[in-house]
């Protein structure tokens, strides 16, 4: 091959790489952000999208159908008082609440699911923990992590004073003090998953303030479809 021809092919190759770099690598998170950074188990993790625009989802989340029950499509809202959020809300939450510790992103799935891969910044508190009856230690520990304190013996007289407004009884019930409860976003496998809805219902039953609870219905299913970063714990 002549030297001139070689140069031409080389130039074409370089141009192809450059154009690929420009077109294929510009998959941003949203209109303003290339990526967000958050903390996951003490390390900084960058959350971005897969940049290969020809890539299709592989793995288990490419599957369209699972038996219902138990894997039934969930309604938009778990409860009228709990907001349902999207990926963009998760990005904001990861950058702010998770980093500063004012919020907790909860992977409410069983550990066997969590171990296969999770959303960066998540902590695994399985829904079954919140469904514990009577304040078992696992529940107490989990709630403590969320800023909730177990109340000591609260006498009827104290409760009465609280209910009359002489003592600050806001966000407290007989068992738990939710006054310092953190903002939470709970998620599981996606619209066909009932694990995080169950966790949210259990938290509401315990008295967790509804305005501090959020449901990410898209879950791992949407996270995967959008090619967003996952981490293996």
């Amino acid at each position: 091959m002549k030297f001139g021809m070689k140069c031409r092919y080389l130039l074409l190759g370089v141009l192809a790489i450059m154009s690929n770099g420009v077109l294929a690598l510009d998959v941003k998170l949203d209109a303003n952000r290339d990526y967000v950074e958050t903390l996951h188990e003490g390390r900084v993790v960058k959350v971005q999208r897969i940049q290969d625009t020809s890539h299709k989802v592989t793995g288990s989340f490419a599957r369209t159908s699972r038996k219902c029950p138990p894997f039934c499509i969930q309604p938009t809202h778990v409860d009228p008082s709990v907001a349902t959020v999207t990926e963009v809300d998760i990005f904001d939450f990861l950058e702010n609440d998770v980093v500063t510790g004012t919020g907790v992103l909860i992977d409410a799935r069983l550990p066997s699911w969590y171990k296969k891969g999770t959303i960066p910044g998540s902590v695994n508190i399985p829904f079954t923990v919140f469904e514990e009856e009577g304040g078992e230690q696992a529940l107490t520990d989990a709630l403590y992590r969320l800023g909730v304190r177990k109340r000591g013996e609260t006498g009827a007289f104290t409760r009465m004073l609280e209910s009359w407004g002489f003592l600050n009884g806001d966000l407290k019930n007989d068992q738990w003090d939710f006054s310092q409860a953190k903002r939470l976003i709970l998620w599981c496998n996606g619209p066909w998953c009932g694990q995080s809805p169950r966790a949210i219902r259990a938290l509401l039953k315990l008295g967790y303030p509804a305005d501090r609870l959020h449901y990410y219905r898209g879950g791992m299913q949407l996270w995967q479809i959008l090619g967003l970063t996952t981490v293996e714990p």
Partner: protein
Amino acid sequence: MSVALADAYLDALQEAADDIQVDPLSTSGQAGAAAATKAERELATPASIKGDIPGGMDLTGLSDFLKQGYVGSYAFFKRLSPEQKQAVFDAYLARPEIAYIRSQIKQQYLQR
């Protein structure tokens, strides 16, 4: 939910979990390797030497700039010690590029 039904649900979840696999390309590190961000790509080329961050700011100005435009980086930045903030500011003076500043913030944060 009855105990029997609850157990059946948990069994179904456990069974399904055995086959679960996330898309390998989405895993942290994999995605990063396959996909440098725009800012990182720009750093690797001469075209990256551009004014994507205002020059002539003092430390407070840099802090405000991050707070307004790079909330995530600011969240890390504000938790740094005064010395570490100064190190980031020195990095800004030496190389006023936002991708570089963000990487310096992250580096300082990890060294706390």
